[in-house]
């Protein structure tokens, strides 16, 4: 608290000179323009922390006190980051909502002073301008942004379960209009510079420069500053006007928005949409709507108050903690903890041009790594190549790639039916059919043609890596790389090491995964590793529920109602009923009755009838028809009827079904940690959320146990255990946590 007060005192006291040299903020006066440069020496990006804020306030007060200064430019000296947001630690250190609100109010006040500044401020934006950074920028009178790919503007607070708390909910609607402001704040999406210009979020764009007498990055920042200084002078000399001439459409929109009933309708529509999408599990979007509404309908003062208070409340919610936990977890899983590999992978080969293989090839070539895509048949290869081409071409349609860049990227892909070029491969990733004997054959064939340093990675979703490695002459170079489908959309990569896998092999696999843009967890070997092993019991429970007469639609609504982005029945269709049957059978053999529940025969029968899920057009649902309403597959219903079970009433309420599904998932996850398959809870949470769609609002199975309470969960499981037996027996680690409430997976 003391330092908070200090901050406020300083802001009110212009005469106070800095006692120590400033480290984060500096300024110089050029031609009556104060150029304020921000650079946090302790980090790659600038964040608005206590220190930064204090120095900013100090500098700004000095500028206001200097009569020679007629305008100011605010710029970051860091390439790629203007200000990436507020310092999260600052809020996390707070104990109460009031404490957080108080912090926010200091920020609000500072930005309000800038908004009302007697001299114009120009924000010169290059790189990430997010959250508090954007709120700072929109408090300035004028904004110039580089048209660089790295320049992104946005309010991502909602993704952390928070809201733009430093005036964002008040200024944005006025600046870009109510609909666009809601879109920005409720989705948290990143906005590129040219879009920002169109929206009216920035006034002027500056082209990024190539190399000159300095590096491109350095010179671009310098140039941005030169241009910003010119505009700052123009603003003082009234040569540049802030107001943009409004078009007819804009005037019409403004008029319509001026009508209270219209606004009321908008609030209502947005509210309903949020409720539909979030199932009411995420409080932040609703609070954002509330803040915006309060500001517009009751004035600024009420708006600011609502903003800071609601931010404080949100910061104390478990949802926000969960989402922030995921954010940090994701950052941690985007680092290579195994060191620099001895050799960089410059040429990769993928075996099998199926959905997975082609997906892996796509995310590899678009990072500039030459890739061979090998299949055994021309049809298979052509399909895979087309998939890669389509993936890239779709990006050109969205304009995130030019057709020229697409062609350059495609030139890195070599589709072939033979092993030509494998002698130069640094890594081979096989994505062939999930059958141990086929995998063995492939290992032997490939090892005969690859150089000694080449790593062999196997993309299997359930087969133990050591079983595959049994056919290898060099098991230290063999590793599991479990991708998730569709590879270009799913962020997770699960890397599986055996006891024989060398550290360098792991380091290399992680390096490749990171290059491919993946969030990576590294787990131990075993049937189903971590992700598949957690999913299997939940799917078994889902099948049981279906057998007990819970329809696929009901099952889906129960799971999505709990926070899963995809319902359990739909998920089974997406994964593939055949894959699910395969996994259920394999893991059933490995783990016994604990993995029971639903009858595997249900799945097998469905496969027999051709109900393999979305890929075959039929699974739990019927696909292909254009109608929006998904139809339940009556053939599947018939099968379920023939395997009908009676639902025990004591454990069959809606909430019971939800917890039956989730508790089996969570218990298996905790068991994986107990057995050492998982190295830590963070990777467990990341794997579950990013790979399996575990409810993000719960933050992953481990954070869920922490927030829900292990004792409560164990209690529920014991209740289920009575009805169903050992599938619900809590594992030892979970019992330990239940016994001792001070034991937590996350601090």
């Amino acid at each position, binding site marked *: 608290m003391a330092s908070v007060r200090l901050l406020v005192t300083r802001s009110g006291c212009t005469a106070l000179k800095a006692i120590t040299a400033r480290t984060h903020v500096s300024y110089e006066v050029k031609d009556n323009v104060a150029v304020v440069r921000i650079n946090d020496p302790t980090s790659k990006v600038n964040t608005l922390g206590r220190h930064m804020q204090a120095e900013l306030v100090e500098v700004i007060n000095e500028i206001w006190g200097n009569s020679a200064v007629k305008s100011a430019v605010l710029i970051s000296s860091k390439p790629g980051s203007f200000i990436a947001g507020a310092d999260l630690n600052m809020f996390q250190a707070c104990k109460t909502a009031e404490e957080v609100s108080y912090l926010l109010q200091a920020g609000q006040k500072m930005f309000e002073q800038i908004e009302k500044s007697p001299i114009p401020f120009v924000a010169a934006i290059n790189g990430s301008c997010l959250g508090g950074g954007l709120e700072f920028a929109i408090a300035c009178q004028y904004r110039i942004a580089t048209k660089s790919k790295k320049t992104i503007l946005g309010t991502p607070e909602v993704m952390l379960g928070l809201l733009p708390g430093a005036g964002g909910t008040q200024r944005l609607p006025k600046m870009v209009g109510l609909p666009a402001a809601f879109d920005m704040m409720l989705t948290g999406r990143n906005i590129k510079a040219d879009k920002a210009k169109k929206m009216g979020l920035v006034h002027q764009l500056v082209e990024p*420069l190539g*190399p*000159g*007498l300095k590096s*491109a990055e350095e*010179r671009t920042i310098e140039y941005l500053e030169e241009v910003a200084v010119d505009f700052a002078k123009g603003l003082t000399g009234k040569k540049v006007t802030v107001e943009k001439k409004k078009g007819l459409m804009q005037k019409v929109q403004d008029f319509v928005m001026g009508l209270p009933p219209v606004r009321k309708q908008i609030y209502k529509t947005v509210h309903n949409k949020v409720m539909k999408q979030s199932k009411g599990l995420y409080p932040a979007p609703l609070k954002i709507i509330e803040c915006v509404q309060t500001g517009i309908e009751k004035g600024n003062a009420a708006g600011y108050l609502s903003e800071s208070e609601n931010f404080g409340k949100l910061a104390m919610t478990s949802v926000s903690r969960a989402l922030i936990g995921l954010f940090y977890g994701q950052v941690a899983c985007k680092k290579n903890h195994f060191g620099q590999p001895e050799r960089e992978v410059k040429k990769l080969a993928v075996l099998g041009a199926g959905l997975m293989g082609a997906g892996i090839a796509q995310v590899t070539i678009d990072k500039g790594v030459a890739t061979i895509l090998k299949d055994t048949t021309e049809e298979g290869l052509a399909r895979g190549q087309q998939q890669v081409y389509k993936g890239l071409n779709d990006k050109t349609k969205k304009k995130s790639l*030019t057709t020229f860049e697409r062609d350059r990227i495609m030139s890195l892909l070599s589709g072939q039916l033979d092993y030509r070029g494998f002698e130069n491969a640094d890594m081979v990733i096989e994505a062939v059919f999930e059958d141990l004997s086929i995998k063995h054959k492939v290992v032997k064939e490939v090892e005969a043609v690859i150089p000694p340093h080449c790593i062999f990675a196997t993309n299997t979703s359930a087969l133990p890596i050591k079983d595959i490695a049994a056919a290898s002459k060099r098991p230290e170079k063999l590793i599991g790389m479990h991708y998730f489908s569709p590879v270009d959309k799913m962020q997770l990569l699960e890397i599986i090491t055996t006891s024989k896998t060398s550290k360098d092999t792991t380091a290399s696999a992680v390096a490749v995964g990171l290059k491919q843009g993946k969030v990576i967890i590294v787990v131990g070997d075993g049937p189903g590793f971590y992700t598949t092993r957690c999913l299997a019991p939940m799917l078994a429970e889902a099948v049981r529920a279906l057998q007990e007469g819970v329809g696929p639609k009901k099952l889906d609504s129960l799971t999505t109602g709990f926070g899963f982005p995809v319902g359990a029945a739909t998920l089974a269709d997406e994964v593939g009923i055949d894959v699910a049957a395969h996994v259920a059978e394999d893991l059933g053999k490995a783990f016994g009755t604990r993995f029971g529940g639903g009858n595997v025969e249900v799945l097998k029968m469905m496969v027999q009838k051709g109900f393999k899920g979305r890929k075959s057009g039929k699974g739990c649902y019927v696909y292909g028809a254009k109608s929006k309403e998904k139809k339940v597959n009556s053939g599947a219903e018939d099968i379920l009827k023939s395997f009908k079970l009676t639902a025990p009433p004591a454990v069959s309420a809606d909430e019971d079904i939800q917890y039956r599904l989730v508790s089996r998932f969570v218990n298996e996850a905790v068991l994986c940690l107990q057995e050492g398959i998982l190295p830590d809870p963070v990777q467990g949470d990341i794997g579950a959320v990013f790979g399996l769609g575990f409810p993000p609002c719960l933050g992953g199975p481990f954070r869920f146990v922490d927030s829900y309470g292990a004792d409560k969960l164990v209690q529920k499981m014991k209740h289920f255990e009575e009805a169903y037996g050992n599938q619900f027996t809590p594992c030892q680690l979970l019992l330990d946590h239940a016994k001792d409430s001070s034991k937590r997976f996350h601090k």
Partner: protein
Amino acid sequence: MQIIEHFMSLSLIRTVLLTAFSFCSAARSLSTSVHLQAQAKSKKTLAKPGVKNIVLVDGVRTPFLQSGTTYADLMPHDLARAALQGLLNRTGLPKDAVDYIVYGTVIQEVKTSNVAREAALGAGFSDKTPAHTVTMACISSNQAMTTAVGLIAAGQCDAVVAGGVEFMSDVPIRHSRKMRKTMLSLNKAKTLGARLSLLGSIRLAHLSPELPAVAEFSTAETMGHSADRLAAAFGVSRLEQDEFALRSHTLAKKAQDGGMLSDVISFKVPGRDIVSKDNGIRPATMEQLAKLKPAFIKPHGTVTAANSSFLTDGASAVLIMSEEKALAMGYKPKAYLRDFVYVSQDPKDQLLLGPTYATPKVLEKSGLTLNDIDVFEFHEAFAGQIMANLKAMESDWFAQTYMGRKTKVGAPPMEKFNTWGGSLSLGHPFAATGCRLVTTVAHRLQKEGGQYGLVAACAAGGQGHAMVIEAYPQ
């Protein structure tokens, strides 16, 4: 003075021979001595053993006119024809003495896609003389000339005419792809019903035409935009650009008035008057230049209409021969065409840096340094582009970081640089500029008594070219 200079140049030869070229010193000193007899004042000749001496006999060009002026109603091959006929008149060359014709063009008129052949036939060359067209953006006629050099060096030809034409008064504007597709399908439609249904499918969007843009295909960036970014990258100010543009116009005016531009031929334009002067030379005041708004990056850019080369119509032609053939036919050649290079680099951020990359490479090939060059003729696409190149050539950091060289090559001294004006003032018919540069070097060497000249140019696609030219002994 002359004696001292002579002595110095001799000692220069000796040092060079003793140090850098010990390997071929015997051969080189032999050929040097031969030429020394014929040439009173000489550094060294760049003749190489086993390589034919190839000479520029003469070069001409039509006046370069701003597009949409007197040439407006012509077609590209008309201009090319005028240049070829002008060359025939100037040299008195028998029409059947030419073995081959190579001609450059950038924006192709679809009716005359091999404009070389159409122009040659129209200019009265023998129909037994084959002709082909080359294209390499602004260095198309450089490519035409070096193709000629290659044909002669390989012993396949003795006399080749090279040149280039650009006609910006009329450019092919196409129907949209959708419309083209419909029209092509219409050709194939057999029944009236099929035709009507195709016609019925035409929508407003079909009618918007496709204009040829002076934009890079790979980056979709217009050249002026790239030039503005390049100037900014090298910190070239608006003032520097305007000053250079003014210099170009002032020097061009002086050269025009002084009768230096002797490569220009008079051309009786059908239905119009005789044209005998370039019409884009307009020396203005700095104040006038400063008033112009930026043309590409608005509002803070620095490249304006006045400090960029303008859209131009024009054609040029040169006669290139093996030295023996020229001498046998009784010609007095103007210059030797020596080493040349083509370079290419990043088409986005280094689109117009061709001269920076090409200059040190061609000098190295010839065993020369920048100080040996008496006459520089660089293609002036934009004042900002020239200034950026000069700064890049002066930068050790740039040479080391981007070109993999140990040191900078250095910037040409301005008193030797484009002293008769350049593309900014004379005009820049894309594919005709290369021949103008080479002919100008030859003429300047003769006028100024220099021995080596250097031509350098940038081109769309991020490519570049440079050539060393040696004065023919007077």
